[in-house]
């Protein structure tokens, strides 16, 4: 171990390299790697661990089906779990800080609802101009169609929220507006559902259950790049977020442009939450639960640590949820959204009971 720097008292916010907190981050990384391998090893089809390791390290396997299952099903799914977990947690953390509200998450700005609106437009609003067939003629097929639709939906809501964010200085008002915009989109969707065919509703319902599978090849690259950009913005905003915790007035007195921070954070969140929702459907709870969990593990409110650890904890939790959802050994899966909520809710309750007082993190 090297020199210990107490980050809390370091006046110029230096980046300590080998503090206990950094060791903890390293430990989290190892745990994530362990669960990543476990996620690859478990599934409906029983594949011996030796073969899994051979396939992962490119040695292949004599069983063609096993090789394809690991390569085309399990590895993309585990990678998607890591990316989605990290993205949702990072965006949840920023939302909670920006709004200084422990219940905020990536969905509060209505971004997920906007994405759902885009998907519903493709799946439910048949006969409208947004008929899937019309879009298909634009050269978008199959799985990309849904991704593009949800991205456009998220962007649409985001533009509304950004427009309001520029005009209104109060974050609480922005939070309420975000929730209201989300409600409007949800009601539009429910009207469409009411007038839709059973099988269309079914398609949409399955999408809302969320899914980590089916993000393959070029889609996985796109998801990784977009989330990568979103995370870079988030990491860069860490210091500003620390100041934001002290209150907007204080931040302004330090000469910080709160509008700039607000727009940066909203943009990062939309990239993160919007892309994950587009590819995986609306996955709930990770975004709200992980930041609380991470704060209690690290016992800090310093975003320079919280941000990377939240990403790692989110990735670990998502991998664990995926392992549970697969119900290893059985032929069936649980919807990932149900599993995240089942795990997420008790975590939030536990954290609140344990801390008795969330204000400490938000003031």
């Amino acid at each position, binding site marked *: 171990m090297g020199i210990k720097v107490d980050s809390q008292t370091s006046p110029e916010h230096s980046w300590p390299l080998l503090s206990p907190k950094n060791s903890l981050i390293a430990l989290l990384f190892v745990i994530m790697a362990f669960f990543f391998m476990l996620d690859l090893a478990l599934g409906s089809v029983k594949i011996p661990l030796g073969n899994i390791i051979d396939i992962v390290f490119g040695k292949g396997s004599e069983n063609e089906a096993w090789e394809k299952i690991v390569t*085309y099903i399990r590895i993309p*799914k585990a990678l998607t779990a890591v990316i989605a977990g990290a993205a949702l947690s990072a965006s949840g953390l920023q939302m909670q800080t920006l709004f200084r509200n422990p219940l905020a998450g990536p969905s509060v700005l209505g971004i997920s609802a906007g994405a759902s609106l885009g998907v519903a437009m493709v799946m439910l609003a048949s006969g409208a101009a947004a008929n899937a067939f019309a879009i298909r003629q634009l050269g978008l097929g*199959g799985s990309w169609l849904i991704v593009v639709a949800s991205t456009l939906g998220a962007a649409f809501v985001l533009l509304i929220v950004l427009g309001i964010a520029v005009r209104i200085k109060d974050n609480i008002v922005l939070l309420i507006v975000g929730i209201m915009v989300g409600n409007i989109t949800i009601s539009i969707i429910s009207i469409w559902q009411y007038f839709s065919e059973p099988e269309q509703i079914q398609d949409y319902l399955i999408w809302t259950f969320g899914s980590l599978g089916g993000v393959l*090849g070029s889609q996985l690259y796109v998801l990784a790049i977009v989330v990568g950009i979103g995370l870079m913005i988030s990491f860069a905003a860490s210091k500003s977020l620390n100041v934001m915790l002290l209150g907007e007035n204080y931040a302004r007195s330090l000469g910080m442009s709160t509008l700039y921070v607000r727009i940066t954070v909203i943009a990062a969140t939309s990239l993160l939450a919007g892309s994950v929702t587009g590819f995986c459907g609306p996955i709930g709870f990770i975004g709200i639960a992980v930041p609380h969990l991470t704060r209690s593990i690290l016992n800090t409110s310093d975003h320079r640590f919280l941000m990377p650890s939240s990403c790692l904890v989110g990735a670990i939790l998502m991998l664990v949820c995926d392992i549970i959802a697969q119900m290893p050994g059985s032929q069936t899966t649980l919807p990932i959204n149900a599993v995240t909520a089942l795990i997420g809710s008790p975590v939030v309750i536990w954290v609140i009971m344990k801390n008795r007082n969330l204000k400490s993190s938000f003031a």
Partner: protein
Amino acid sequence: MNIFRSSFTGSVHHRFSGVLRCAISLFAVVFTTGLSGCSNETEVHPKQEAVSVDVPLSYAKGFSLYDHEGFKTLRVIVDLDGRQDTLRYLLIPKESPLPDGFDEHVVVRTPVERVALFSTTQVGYIDLLGCADRIIGIARPDYVNTPSLRERIEKGAVSEIGMPFSPNVEEILELNPEMIVTTAFPAARQTDYKALVMAGIPVVVVAEWLEESPLGRAEWLKLYAALLGREEVAVEKFADIEHSYHALKALTDTLSHRPSVVTGMPFKDAWFVPGGNSYVACFLRDAGADYHWKNRAKTGSIKMDIEAIYPVALEAEFWLNPGTVQSLDELLAKDIRFRDFFAVRSGKVYNNNRLLNPAGGNAYWELGAVRPDRVLGDLIRILHPDLFPERGNGDDSLTFYRHIQ
């Protein structure tokens, strides 16, 4: 994507599946006793039973008809999610006085001349009985393929009466049909139908999609016949269908090569396959296919993990009913992993959407339920082309199926 359109999800009537059932049964409204005076005990009235004769049914298990002197009674058994309801109807000629002792029954005056429907499947049955001209209202008329009815819809002779989930009660009352036919499924808001029953319009609930055999589904023709007063026609038509079905089935009885099949279309990592007791599995068995999950005793569809199906799908000789896709490009755009399937590599993918109208209404759902012989004919031609040497390379000999290429 549309995994459930494919009947080979076995799922249920057209397009209801386990997911929907699970999701909606959370707040599903079950058949209220007020709807039809249904009750779970099957007590009989000894006096009437003494003079009633069962109308013989060879395959259908979901309904039974009793012939009393001068009128009939009908029982429809709806078994959804393990909850069984029996609905009772009294079918009585328009001029006859009502008999005593049938307070529990919904009265339908026969022969019914003005019918409102909530599903295109019902059109198939009624048209086969030659009564399409009695249909005066239908939900989603744009989905109808049947030419005779299509023509009447274009002329404006058929009203739109809402959606399957949400009947437009006012529209229906104004239309004043003598009977409404609706399909039993958990998501239907029975309260709306209850209002119609209270207004004196009988609602007949059908559930042909719960049958375990294709001929069982087709035999529901006899229920429609009793309502429309076309019993002789139904007996004759059904005997033809039955005969033709068995003749086709006999072709595959002795075959040694039974090709393996995989069915349906996954969405991301969820894949629905028909249960071993579903009418779809029965179709595959009768068509001389080897269906991997034939021993999974379930009538509806089974939701499975794509990983569990993948090893089977990799090797399966045929892939049937991949959702709504119409071309190989479209199939691969859904999920690139499909390119590894043997059926895709060897060009043996077939879908049941050959007959689509511009709105996307598929004739397979309209005619397929009542003409299982034609569906079976398609399947045997696809799976065993050597049995039909005169068949060309084209799709011309198929009714409902298209070759996906």
